[in-house]
């Protein structure tokens, strides 16, 4: 028994020493510093990012992450991030970033907006951006957003223009204000072309349950839809797959999904979230950061309908003209914002 206790103590000491080392050796552990020794003392911008889900979701988060990687290459920033941060706990992650000396904290989801409003006043020297945010309550908060419905409006126009059954569908993961805007945009766009068109809506209730997403779309297909707008994160792949099997058309969102199924995805209603990330970082890099709400639009590339090149050629000029006309009207602000109850 004695021996066992001693060996246990040894292992315990090993653990304790691990913890102990943590404090002591920290300075030596900063890897990035060495490379820049010769450079003039320009500290790289440190950016901390908070994601709601996985950076590999092939949609919203991935687009934001890619923008970070690009900013690192182009602007020499340093960044780190934390994934799957629930809104309820995001305040602590922001504070952590702030204490760890980050210059800019990007809360990459509009649901973080209120929390940012709470945390930002505690750190007046740190800048915050909220992707798709809706309010800026402090000078150090920039809510960078877009209309939220322009892209889906165009998708609706396209869907209605190509639908033969006069029934189209939209699949979302969960319900939210932005989701409602997106869906209402889609419905209004479709009705603007064909007032009699029917739009089916469904929710998977999670960003993960791809089997359920496929079943829902399959059900809609049986109900007669021939175009589906899928805006449900990674579940999109399953949805497009189902559309392909059934031989109906799909519109991807929020990224360009043409390559997933070139014969099925006719276009993508893109709202690349990387634009928001990029916008904030650039403002800071250009020493031009001001609080406030920035609404980016079609002109800035924050919203668009991207044709699948293979399909653009197949559609009649009339279809393409209709979509382009809608696009023009949207960027000119000639279409009224949809009413979301």
């Amino acid at each position, binding site marked *: 028994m004695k021996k066992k206790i001693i060996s246990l103590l040894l*292992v315990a000491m090993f653990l304790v020493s691990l*913890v102990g080392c943590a*404090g002591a050796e920290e300075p030596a552990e900063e890897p990035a510093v060495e490379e820049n020794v010769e450079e003039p003392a320009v500290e790289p911008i440190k950016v901390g990012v908070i994601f709601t889900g996985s950076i590999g979701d092939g949609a919203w988060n991935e687009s934001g992450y890619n923008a970070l990687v690009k900013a690192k290459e182009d602007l020499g920033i340093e960044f780190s991030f934390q994934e799957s941060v*629930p809104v309820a706990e995001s305040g602590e992650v922001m504070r952590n*970033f702030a204490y760890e000396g980050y210059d800019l904290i990007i809360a990459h989801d*509009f649901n973080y907006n209120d929390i940012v409003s709470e945390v930002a006043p505690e750190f007046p020297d740190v800048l915050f951006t909220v992707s798709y945010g809706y309010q800026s309550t402090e000078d150090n908060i920039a809510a960078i957003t877009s209309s939220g419905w322009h892209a889906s409006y165009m998708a609706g126009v396209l869907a209605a223009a190509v639908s033969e059954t006069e029934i189209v569908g939209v699949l979302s993961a969960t319900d939210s204000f932005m989701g409602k805007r997106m869906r209402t945009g889609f419905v209004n766009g479709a009705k603007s072309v064909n007032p009699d068109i029917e739009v089916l809506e469904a929710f998977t209730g999670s960003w993960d349950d791809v089997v359920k997403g496929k079943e829902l779309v399959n059900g809609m297909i049986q109900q007669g839809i021939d175009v589906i707008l899928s805006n449900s994160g990674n579940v999109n792949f399953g949805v497009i797959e189902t559309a392909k099997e059934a031989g109906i058309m799909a519109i991807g969102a929020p990224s360009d999904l043409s390559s997933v199924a070139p014969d099925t995805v006719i276009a993508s209603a893109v709202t690349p979230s990387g634009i928001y990330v990029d916008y904030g970082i650039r403002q800071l890099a250009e020493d031009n950061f001001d609080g406030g709400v920035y609404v980016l639009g079609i002109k800035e590339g924050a919203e668009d309908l991207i044709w699948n090149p293979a399909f653009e050629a197949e559609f009649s000029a009339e279809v393409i003209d209709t979509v382009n006309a809608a696009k023009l009207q949207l960027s000119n602000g000639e279409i009224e914002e949809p009413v979301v109850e």
Partner: protein
Amino acid sequence: MSSFDSSLSRRILRMRILVTGLAVVVAFLLGSALVALAGINPLTALRYLFSGALGTRHGIGETLTRFIPLFLATLSFAIAMKVHFYNVGIEGQIALGSLGALLVGVYVTGLPAPIHILLCLTASVVFGILWLSVAGFLRFRFGANELLTTVMLNYIAIYLIDILVETVLKDPNSLINQSQKIAATAKLPRIMEGTTVHLGLVFAAIVGFIVYYYVWRTPGGFELRAVGANSKAAKYAGINPAKLIIIGMIISGGLAGLGGGLNLLGYQSRWVSGTFLGYGFDGIGAAVMGQYHPLGMAFSALLFAIIRVGGGAMQRSVGVPYPLVHALQGIVIIAVIISAYFIEKRTEKMTKGGQ
């Protein structure tokens, strides 16, 4: 014939702590192997895990803030286990407890702070109990296995609250699906400058002590333990097992609800649709690791809180994907439950004595 031997109890306790500690160390070594798989130096990662959770004032604060609901979830599971009621529905009871505190915190106004807080907490306890009672009722009335009903009730609770928060409870001034904030009078004050640690920590400590005192020091606790250890013998000794199971259930549901309430009043302040706290399942793991003893559970709940907070630090510093936290918790649970076998064997030997 020796007298009452408290040194034996002490030796057993020491042995239990040592063996459990060894299991935790083994679990961390396995977790390190996973980290290495990602091409990251596990020593560096572990260092950040602990420094992130304990190395700074803010880190400690965050850890303690997480500890509050986690510890109550742990106590909740343990006390139900004492009477062999498998409460796997703590997640749902925490959610309902949050809802109770939220309703009173938002919609009851004009009360002085202490009274408002107590009223909110009462509501959270009641809601927690009521939600568990559904499973309790189904078990006692129909014999439905509570293990399954509580799991199902978790899913239902989360969906139910989301429905409420997206409809009747939705903050009319907010664009996102969330409730209003609780009134200022319902907020639990912060107790550690510059951190989120709130008065709930004191509540949790007091409740922890009360639970300890009740279970190990009072006649009621004696009955509870007797029913858990041998309900037939307890029944023949004049104890009513059904009554004790119900008491255990009520305490369990109340503790879980209180955990949700404290977290809401002290930290969250509102409910955002889609929130999944995950304290319920962590609490089960921590209860097992703490071997259902209040002091052991305080340590294990703290460790689980450290893993949670440190997990974030590991990702921010060296890019270890966050789900490692769950994998590590799983390994800890498995290692500790296996170590329980050795503890049992050893205890048996030690209590046997000479004849």
